[in-house]
């Protein structure tokens, strides 16, 4: 077959009709704090890893809520669980507990 060099791009759109945010919901039962984030960005701003890798707690839980689980998990893989983000979160969210539970839930769902 002749290759013409065309390919289909994958949609970047968030389609909340097709979305599967079961990981988010599962974690929300264990750590309800996950619902409290208002995306201020303090967590990512204080994160040491974010200087080197694309780590962002607030982005990760937002993407998880929108059902983009793979991308969300990839953003947490480089987290060193230092806990600085807990100190700066104005809503007092137990970020480390959430991260651990997201990774656990993801493991269980595999």
């Amino acid at each position, binding site marked *: 077959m002749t290759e013409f060099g065309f390919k289909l791009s994958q949609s*970047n*759109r*968030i389609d*909340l*009709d097709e979305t599967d945010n079961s990981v988010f919901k599962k974690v929300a039962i264990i750590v309800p704090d996950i619902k*409290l984030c*208002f*995306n201020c960005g303090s967590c990512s701003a204080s994160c040491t890893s974010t200087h080197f890798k694309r780590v962002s707690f607030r982005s990760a839980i*937002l993407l998880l809520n*929108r059902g983009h689980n793979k991308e969300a998990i990839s953003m947490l893989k480089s987290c060193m669980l230092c806990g600085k983000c807990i100190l700066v979160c104005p809503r007092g969210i137990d970020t480390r507990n959430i991260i651990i539970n997201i990774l656990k839930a993801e493991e269980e769902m595999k």
Partner: protein
Amino acid sequence: MVSPSENLNLNNMYKNVLVLGGGVAGLQAASSLRDLGYRVTLVEKGEKPGGHLNNWDRLYPGNITSSSVIDGYLSNSQGIRILTNTTIKSALKSDKLLTVITSSSEEITVSAVIITTGFSLFDATIKEEYGYGLYNGVITNADLESLFISGKIHNREKPSRVGFVHCVGSRDDKVCNRHCSKICCMTAVKQACEIKEIWPETEAFCFYMDLRMFGRGYEDLYYEAQNKYGVNFIRGRVSEVGEDENGKLVVKAEDTLTSRPLKISLDMLVLMSGMVKNPDNKALSAIFETSIGEDGFFAQPHPIVNPTGSSSTRIFFAGSATGPKSVAESVNEAKSAALSVHMLLSNE
């Protein structure tokens, strides 16, 4: 408490004051002036006093009913002459008096006027892209309040998903309203919580540009919406609304916090129509020789130190005639305006 009769300057007894507009600001201004000993005429263009509160179910924070607020004023309105279905046609100024002529050709001579003509609700059909008037599922904040008041909300089929669009007709130069309407953020969040109270399994989505939960108890409302009711917040202005073959509303927005386009199908979409100028402002401003701002609301020469004062000595403002305000703020301004009238008249 000192009864009004013990507290008065007897000179006030025969001084008349006109309050123009029978919404919450007008009712409060009239009742404060009456308590200070003035003879008050309250002119209302509608069929009954109460203004927009007549069409609103409950108020944030604390969820008290609007009807209890109105009833509180009306049950204590003795001594206030209330003229309904009445407007002002003209006013004649003399030294210390103003003679106004009403639509029923009555002449009322007063020493001061408080303008409490409030706001109009933005006409959501102007934002055609939101499909108000086109799709059955698209309603406004005021429509939802009417459904709450009448109880008809319970006759509706349980929606699986409901959306709330903030800033409809506010912060929008395209419709000549650059201003923030100030109360819609709380109204949207309040209504989302109320929907979740009625149908706990329904998912609620608020589409906002900024959340301006600025007052005491408002941030708690937001916290409760997230924590107790699980309301979803999406930062992004809805760009368009369509309808699919099953009658579901298809809503598009950008999820700006993930920088991605977003699509969602909803059963009901509630538009937060903002507060815009009362269309009567221009004519009234000409009659009373006051000025209006670019946004069409009445303008105060000194909005910071004298928010109830106008450019005319005997004309005062209270409530959302000078820009969007909450009920509590309107009540405060009405009391402040009544005091300003008293300070002017008791020295004459």
